[in-house]
C-alpha cells in the first residue's frame, strides 16, 4: 500500500499550524481518498475501461483542496480517458459534481493469456502475430508507440514487428550501403527514398493491417509490419510460444497472422485465468520469387538489380 504510506507521511509532515487530531484525521482521510481514486482510475485504464478511469479521475479532481500539482498531473489523463470513453464533454466545474464514491466494487482481475502457434511450413511458427478483440464488450484503442526498425546486413530487423495503430516507426539504416524502404501494401503505401548508412526516416502508420516492407535497391529484403487496432496482441517466438498480458476475462475473437499463410486464422476464445490457447497456421502462401520494385514492376533477385 504505497499510497497509504504516502498519505501517512504527508499527514505526518511538519506543518506551520499546531497539529490537532481532528485535522490530522481529515488529512489522512483525504489523502486516502486521493490514493484510492488515483489507483482505481489507473487499474481501469490498464483494463481498457476508460469510462471508469475517467469517472474515478474526474471524482478525484473534484476533491476540495486537491494539491495543485496532483491536479495538473491528473487532469490530462482524465481528459484522455474521457475522450477514449467516447464522452466528449469533460466536466470542469467542481460545483456540479456529486461526491465521489470511494468504495470500489470488485472488478475482474486481468489475466495473462499464453499459448502456442504451430505450422508455418519451413519458416516455422515464429513471427505469428496474435491479436484479441472482445466479442462481449468493447475493445479499447491501443496507445500508439514509437519503435525502431533497422535495416541491417540487408535484412529488416526485426523481421516481424507488431505495433498499435497510429504508431510511428523509425526506419534506421545500420548498413554501410544505401537502402530505400517502401511498401505497396493497401494498409500503408510509403516510400522513404534513398537513405545512407546511419540515416533515419520516420513513418506513421494510421491504418490497421499488414504492411509488407521491401527495399527498392535490394530485392531480397523482406519484412513485415503488422499494425493492430487492439491493445491485446503479441508476436510468437521461434518456438511459436506467445503471451498476452493483462487481458480482462471474457469472450474474444483471436486472429493469427503469419507470413506463410494466405489468410488470417480466426477463432472465438474464452479468456480466463490460466487460459492456454493453441493455433495452427497453414503454409499455403506462395513466396513471391519476383518481389516488385516501388513502382510495382517485378524484379529478379538472382540478377541482383
Amino acid at each position, binding site marked *: 500500500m504505497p499510497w497509504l504510506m504516502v498519505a501517512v507521511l504527508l499527514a505526518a509532515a511538519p506543518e506551520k499550524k499546531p497539529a490537532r487530531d481532528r485535522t490530522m484525521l481529515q488529512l489522512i482521510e483525504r489523502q486516502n481518498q486521493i490514493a484510492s481514486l488515483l489507483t482505481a482510475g*489507473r487499474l481501469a485504464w490498464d483494463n481498457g475501461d476508460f469510462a471508469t478511469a475517467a469517472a474515478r479521475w474526474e471524482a478525484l479532481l473534484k476533491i476540495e483542496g486537491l*494539491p495543485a500539482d496532483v491536479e495538473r498531473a491528473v487532469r490530462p489523463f482524465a481528459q484522455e480517458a474521457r475522450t477514449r470513453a467516447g464522452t466528449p464533454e469533460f466536466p470542469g466545474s467542481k460545483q456540479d459534481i456529486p461526491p465521489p464514491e470511494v468504495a470500489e466494487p470488485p472488478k475482474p482481475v486481468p489475466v495473462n493469456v499464453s499459448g502456442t502457434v504451430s505450422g508455418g511450413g519451413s519458416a516455422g511458427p515464429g513471427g505469428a502475430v496474435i491479436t484479441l478483440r472482445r466479442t462481449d464488450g468493447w475493445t479499447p484503442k491501443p496507445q500508439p508507440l514509437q519503435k525502431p526498425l533497422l535495416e541491417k546486413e540487408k535484412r529488416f530487423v*526485426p523481421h516481424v514487428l507488431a505495433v498499435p495503430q497510429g504508431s510511428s516507426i523509425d526506419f534506421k539504416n545500420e548498413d554501410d*550501403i544505401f537502402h530505400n524502404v517502401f511498401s505497396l501494401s493497401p494498409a500503408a503505401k510509403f516510400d522513404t527514398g534513398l537513405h*545512407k548508412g546511419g540515416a533515419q526516416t520516420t513513418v506513421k502508420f494510421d491504418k490497421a493491417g499488414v504492411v509488407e516492407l521491401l527495399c527498392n*535497391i535490394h530485392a*531480397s529484403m523482406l519484412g513485415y509490419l503488422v499494425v493492430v487496432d487492439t491493445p491485446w496482441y503479441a508476436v510468437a517466438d*521461434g518456438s511459436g510460444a506467445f503471451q498476452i498480458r493483462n487481458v480482462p476475462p471474457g469472450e474474444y475473437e483471436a486472429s493469427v497472422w503469419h507470413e506463410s499463410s494466405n489468410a488470417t486464422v480466426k477463432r472465438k476464445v474464452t479468456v480466463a485465468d490460466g487460459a492456454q490457447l493453441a493455433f495452427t497456421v497453414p503454409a499455403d502462401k506462395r513466396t513471391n520469387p519476383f518481389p516488385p520494385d*516501388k513502382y510495382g*514492376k517485378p524484379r529478379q533477385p538472382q540478377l541482383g538489380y
Partner: protein
Amino acid sequence: MRAGVLVLLCAPSALAQADAYSPPAASQPSGLQINGYADVGFAAAQGNGTSFAPGDTRIPADYGVDPFATAVNSRGDVASTDSGGRFTNGFLPRSMNIGGQASIFLSTFDVDLKYVPSTVPLLLFGRVQFLPRYGGSGNDTRVIVEQAFAKIAPFSSLELAFSIGKFDSVFGIEYLENEANLRTNITPSLIARYTTGQSLGLKAFYRIQIPGIWSAVSLNAAVTNGGTLVETLSPPDISLVGRPIGSARLGYELNLPSVEVKAGVSGEYGPRNDQHDPTVRQWLLGADLRVVFKGLSLSAEAVKVHQDEGAADKSNGLGPQTLVSEFVARGAYATLSYTLPVSDGALRKFIPYLRYERRRAQFEGFPAYTVDRWTIGFRVDLWEELIVKAEGLLNGEVSGLPKVDNNVFTSSFVYQF
C-alpha cells in the same frame, strides 16, 4: 508528490509481451527455393502461319521476309517456319508447327532453382525449361538449361557482384522480362532476337547510388562465348572462334517517389560466333528508356546490328547452315502500358498495353526490307499464381518484301508456383 503521481500514471503497463520477431541469422535464408511456371497458350495465325509469301521465289527464303513475325509465345516461337520446300539459311526462330490452324499448345514448363547459403554471400541459380514441340517427325520436346550460374557479392558495402556460368544477356532491357510470367505482354519484340539470348561466361555488375538526386548509375558487363543473339541464331554455349565476345550496358536510373526513369546505352563487340573465323566481327549498339508514372509505363529500346561476311560453314542453334552473309539491321520498339488500380480480391492487376515496333534489315545481295508491327493486348493477374494474357499482332510489310497475311492472335495462361 507529483512525481509519485506521474510514476503511477506513466509507469510501463504490465503489457510487456513480445511484439517483434527475427529468425536467427543462421536459419535464413532457407536453403533451396524452387519456383517456376507453366505457360499454356492458344493462338491462331493468318495464312499458313508463316511470313513466306506465296509466289516469292527468292533464295534463301528467310532472307526476304521476317520469319519471326508470327510469334505466338514469350519465347518468340512462331506458328510455323514451313518455307514450302524452299532453301533457308537458318535465320529462323523455333516453330510451334501449328501452321494456320487455331491451336492450344504448351509453350514452356519452367523450373527455377535458387540456393543461397547462409554463410557466404553466394547465390546459385538454375533455370531449366521443358519445351514440348510437335515437329514433322513427331514429338520434338526439348529440355534446355536456360541459365545456370553462381553469383557472388564479395563486399557487403558495395553493390558489386560477379557471376559465372550461363546467364541472361546484359544488353538492353528486354531480357529483364523475357519469361512468360514476367512479361507484361506475350510476344518478344522484333529486335529481341538480337538482344535477349543467354550466353556462357563471366559477368560483373556494379551500381553506385547518388542519394542527393535520388539516382543511381550502373555498369553491367559480360565476357561470353557467344553473344546476345537468341539461341536459334547462334550456337548455344560453346565458342566456335576461341575468342570471347564483350557486351555491356551503362545505365542511369532516377527513382523519385512517384516517377521512375531508367535509361541506358548498350554495346557488344567480338567475333561472329556462328562461324569459325575470329576475324569476322559483329557489333551491336543500343539505347533504352523506361519511364513509370502513376501506373503508366513506357518502355522503349533501339538497336543497330552489324555482322561481317565470312566464309562458309555457318552453324547456329538450328544446326549447320551454308552462307555467312553480311547482315545489317536496325530496329526499335516502344510499349505503353497502364496498370489499373484494383482491389485486393482475386483480381490483382489489370494491364492493357500497346506496342509499336519497326525493323529494317538487309542481307548481303538482297534488297533492304522494312517491317513494322502493332501489338495490342491485356494482362490480368489473378491471385498470386495465375496470369491471363491475350494480344493481337498486326504485322506490316513496309517496304522491300511482298505483302503477306501473317497477323496473329495469341493468348497465354501462366500458372506460377
